[in-house]
């Protein structure tokens, strides 16, 4: 029989009940932001949750046969279909009359790029799913390739710097605005530097019926080339310099949750190896874009 198809969860002797939902012992790198994000997501979501996870770092670190870090029902299928798989799960739950949260968990590659169609279909059909994108702004799992979440001028292994290249030539895709344009009831951003913010947004999102979208900023020390002890610091700097905007859009109405402290973008860019090649020219372009984005967002308030 197919005994090794399904892995039974061995509940480890953790102290708190919530800690059992995403257990220690996973194989994340030192300083991994995704493990922090998932921990907080699961603390807020609780045990009556089914996680649909796409292929990527989060999956690789947590579900190598025959062990699992998941203390909730967990389904991994492929890279580009979190939205569709979660749709199927949600439809089945309705028929089985099971009340549970469905959380789709994907990276930026699986959301901004290859999984965009599947996500859009899920939102379009109105499935009761919270879709969470852990955004580390590149394909970390395959070795730091460029995604459409990669910021302007960032070095990646497929946007190398050189005589004719300053790194990534384009700005980040406005995924939250795309979701809002589709009429999603709740879309928000958060950051691993603010665990309480993640938890409160997950709880709020799960209280709303229908499709929801949450984008969590996850600075990856391996991909972004900074010291593994600085993950939280980097995530904070992103918010403080205005590079990462913490906001929510509920029923089309925007609110900004955190204001930048007035720090300039170079404080965030300079400690990162992926930006070490930047000249003042690029930094000025980035600062200008950040200022414009803020103006635009404030005009929407």
């Amino acid at each position: 029989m197919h005994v090794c198809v399904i892995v039974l969860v061995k509940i480890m002797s953790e102290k708190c009940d919530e800690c059992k939902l995403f257990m220690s012992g996973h194989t994340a790198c030192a300083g991994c932001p995704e493990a922090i994000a998932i921990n907080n997501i699961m603390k807020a979501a609780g045990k009556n949750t089914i996680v649909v996870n796409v292929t990527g770092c989060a999956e690789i670190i947590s579900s190598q046969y025959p062990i699992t870090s998941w203390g909730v029902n967990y389904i991994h299928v492929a890279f580009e279909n979190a939205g569709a798989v979660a749709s199927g799960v949600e439809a089945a739950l309705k028929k089985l009359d099971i009340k549970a949260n469905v959380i789709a968990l994907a990276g930026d590659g699986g959301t901004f790029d290859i999984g965009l169609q599947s996500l859009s279909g899920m939102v379009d059909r109105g499935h009761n799913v919270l879709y969470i994108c852990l955004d580390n702004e590149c394909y970390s799992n395959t070795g730091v390739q460029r995604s459409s979440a990669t910021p302007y001028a960032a070095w990646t292994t497929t946007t190398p710097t050189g005589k004719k290249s300053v790194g990534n030539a384009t700005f980040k895709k406005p995924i939250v605005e795309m979701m809002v344009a589709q009429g999603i009831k709740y879309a928000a951003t958060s950051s691993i530097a603010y665990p309480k913010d993640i938890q409160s947004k997950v709880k709020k999102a799960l209280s709303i019926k229908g499709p929801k979208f949450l984008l969590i900023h996850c600075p990856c020390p391996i991909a972004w080339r900074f010291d593994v002890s600085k993950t939280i610091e980097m995530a904070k700097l992103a918010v403080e310099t205005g590079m990462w905007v913490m906001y929510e859009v509920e029923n089309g109405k925007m609110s900004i949750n955190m204001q930048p402290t007035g720090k300039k973008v170079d404080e965030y860019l300079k400690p990162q190896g992926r930006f070490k090649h930047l000249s003042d020219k690029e930094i000025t372009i980035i600062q200008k874009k950040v200022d414009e984005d803020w103006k635009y967002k404030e005009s929407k308030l």
Partner: protein
Amino acid sequence: MQRKQYKEIINKLYDRQKSDLMKKIMEGSHAIAEAVKLCEPQVIASYPITPQTHIMEKLSEMVANGELDAEFLNVESEHSAMSACIGAQATGVRTFTASASQGLALMHEMLFIASGMRLPIVMAVANRSLSAPLNIWCDWSDAMAERDSGWLQFYCESVQEAFDTVIMAYKIAENNNVLLPAMICIDGFFLSHVYEPVDISFKKFLQPYIKKINLDKPITQGAWSGPDYYQDFKKQQQDAMEQSKKVIAEVNEKFSKIYGRKYGNGLIEVTNPGKKYAIISMGSVCGTIKNFLEKNDDFTLIRIKSFRPFPFEELKILSDFESIGVLEKDISLGNSGALFTEIKSLTSVPTSNFVGGLGGRDITLNDIQKIVDTVKKKDESFHWV
């Protein structure tokens, strides 16, 4: 004529009439939808592609008017159709989808995952050619390209068989010794759009599907594995394929007891046995060959119903023939027909390959005559029909 004989004939006629009364003139696609309805899937994922669309249209009607209590998902691609079925089946319900051609090709990645996760999803495939050039008509290129995906593949000859095979497919796929997804292959247009008399009456055959996910006893599905375990998963799938042969034969037998209809031993069907020559084929073209046999019965027709698992045991009978011809609607470019390569690996009897009907080209009685004539010459070469 004696009174007793007379009575027997009358009774026979009466029985036949009674069974005919149960029949309805119905399009192949609609007959499949009727069969699916009887199997009560709870989640159906749908994406249109010719010539499969009528199946999904009919099912959506059934859901809309309350005949069938299912979640009907109008997904945004075939890739998502299979993904949604995987998600739903993994959560614990019976599912259904249908596809063809480019759509099946787009599903390719998900097919391997469905079988690797051991989810008994059932799908109808209205066989159609693959582009380029774009062509909507029948051949088996689409399903043949998925022969290694770990799905059971059943090819049907008639609308009635398509109806019956849907019901049998669920029973086989969901068997605990199998747990593999199943593909019901019907020739696009030749079966999907043709009207035939078909008996769609319900008889109790399937058990309810009970695999409900448990929130208090969570499981991880779709775990990844390194070189230490991956091959063992594949071995288990291969073992399940092997075990499925017995299950297919049993289900075919059980089905014939309940429904009174039978298709060979479930894996192959032999017509006009005991001749020197054999023609091997699949699908609706076997109807044409049977028609031909009515006047020229000097060869045996072996119809492969189950292409996956491949019926190696049953085909040991091939050594009894002097020569064999394999007629098929697909080609493995750079080699020969896919069915031919399987047959050739089994026997040293002179075997010739006939590839035809590609992109919907008709295979006529004249073509069958030419094929039979060539086979009688103990030919061993490749021919276009």
